[in-house]
């Protein structure tokens, strides 16, 4: 069942409300972030702060320092804009705050660049102790929300405005810090995160029809990154293509490149290389090459370059 991961988040949060330590803050976007279900059920533990995200982040830090477990939600771009409050009031204080950035990436569509979270992962990743999680579907989102509530420390959860396909296998259990191989393959590993994991699996199906055998790994924990799994999969297939609906600087691609820089495994980063703009989510994914066809094109190009390089140096296909 396809569902926007912000909806899955809202449902999980309302369920978590049975724990009296859980409090929720929102900045006039409760109907969009989906904190409204919690607000309706637990009005005394819901704080509507108005359009004042900096204060929201600070209040969340204060609530956490006094023993509560606050979830503070807004669009990913607006939270990223309050980096100074997140850096000091939350991260440096090691306040047990869960920041939830919804409306990730160009996938939001028509509202255009000002509402698109395209730099949030890059910023959050720089902060010591900050956990960064981007689930790929409804099941994983619900489990990630529970897991982050139980984790003692600051965390950032990134979810989508738009519906995403189910990708997790039946019986799947989310584990913080574990990348999840979803498909085995010999020729290349595609490491994807968030909404585009489903697109990567579709791309793998398209490529299989051409005889190209691609592995797909869902990197739902962006920090701490599961470097061991990525090095293992990348080593087996010879290279990694990262795919994300986020600016190509500082996100998943950067994280994987940093982690694998010393391994010699080639990494190619694929993501958003410009400001976003208005259009349907599907049109924007097509424009940025983040739909299945675009990802398949990236895979063919990467394999083509690697093949040319191997022919030039006379090295064989990796085992």
């Amino acid at each position, binding site marked *: 069942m396809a569902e926007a991961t912000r909806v899955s988040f809202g449902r999980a949060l309302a369920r978590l409300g049975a724990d009296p330590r859980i409090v929720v803050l929102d900045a006039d976007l409760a109907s969009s972030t989906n904190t409204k279900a919690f607000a309706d059920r637990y009005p005394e533990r819901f704080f509507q702060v108005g359009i004042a995200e900096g204060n929201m982040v*600070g209040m969340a830090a*204060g*609530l956490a*320092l006094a023993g509560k477990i606050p979830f503070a939600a807004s669009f990913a771009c607006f939270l990223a804009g309050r980096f100074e409050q997140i850096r000091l009031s939350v991260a440096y204080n090691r306040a047990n705050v869960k920041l939830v950035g919804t409306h990730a990436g160009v996938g939001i569509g028509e509202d255009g660049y000002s509402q698109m979270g395209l730099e949030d992962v890059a910023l959050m990743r720089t902060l010591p102790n900050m956990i960064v999680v981007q689930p790929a579907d409804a099941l994983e989102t619900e489990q990630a929300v529970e897991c982050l509530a139980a984790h003692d420390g600051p965390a950032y959860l990134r979810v989508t405005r738009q519906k995403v396909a189910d990708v997790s296998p039946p019986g799947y259990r989310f584990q913080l810090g574990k990348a999840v191989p979803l498909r085995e393959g010999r020729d290349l590993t595609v490491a994807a995160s968030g909404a585009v994991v489903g697109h990567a699996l579709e791309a793998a199906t398209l490529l299989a029809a051409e005889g190209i055998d691609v592995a797909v790994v869902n990197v739902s924990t962006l920090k701490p990154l599961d470097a061991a799994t990525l090095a293992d999969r990348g080593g087996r297939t010879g290279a990694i293509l990262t795919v994300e609906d986020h600016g190509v600087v500082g996100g998943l691609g950067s994280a994987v490149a940093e982690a694998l820089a010393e391994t010699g495994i080639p990494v190619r980063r694929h993501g958003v290389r410009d400001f976003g703009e208005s259009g349907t989510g599907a049109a924007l994914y097509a424009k940025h090459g983040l739909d299945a066809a675009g990802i398949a094109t990236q895979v063919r190009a990467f394999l083509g370059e690697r093949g040319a390089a191997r022919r030039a140096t006379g090295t064989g296909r990796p085992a």
Partner: protein
Amino acid sequence: MPDAAVEEVGRLRPIVRRMRERVIRMITAAGSGHPGGSLSAAEITAALFFHTLRRQPGNPHWPERDRFVISKGHGVPIVYAALAELGEIGEDEALTLRRLGSRLQGHPDRIMLPWVEAATGSLGQGLSIALGMALASRLDGDRFRVFCLLGDGETQAGQVWEAAMAAGKYRPRNLVAIVDYNKVQLDGPVPAIMDLEPFADKWRSFNWRVKVLADGNDLAQVIPALDEAGRGGGPWVLIANTVKGKGVSFMEETAAWHGKAPTQDEAARALAEIAAHG
């Protein structure tokens, strides 16, 4: 003033003097720091730590303790001076201010030194944190009160008014803000940099109860004001008119001493003045 109040002022006066002396010694030893805004807040900080705050000696984590957030993080030496006076940190440790490895960071760090409630120093953030703490306390049946010391220049930051607006909405009765209104900030006089007036009206219009202290360096005014605000009915703001660099004539009312350390000679003169007038 009742006899008991006179007695309390008399009890705190030598404490304030020793705190001022420590601030001068600490900042001189460190070779850098912010004496002006530490000295202006000496009476307020002493009244809080030695009269107002419910605390448990030796236990910074007592859940029922009143919280004190120093939002003007650069003024933290006056808090370290109070903690040294209380014996929660040693006199030797006080002199490690700003050194590598010291718990006494240039701006407060709650992980290194649990006696401070929150890291601050990026100005404008502390009132939001204090408000969050006050709301947490209310959810738990008003277990503790929250006091937050702001700098005057700091209230030029928009986030302060976001927090003020939210406190005006949620009305935590256990929240008390105190503004150290010393009229001088790093680049010059507050009215020249960005005037705050009409200051009390601003807070009133955000639904705060306001008390203006004509002299925030007078314990006889500070103590009863904290008593009244601490009884509840807030959010309260005490606008304390103070003197930047109070107690050291050459530091008073001058932006030059916002953020520099005295030389050994200057420190000796400062300590002599504090001893003579304190």
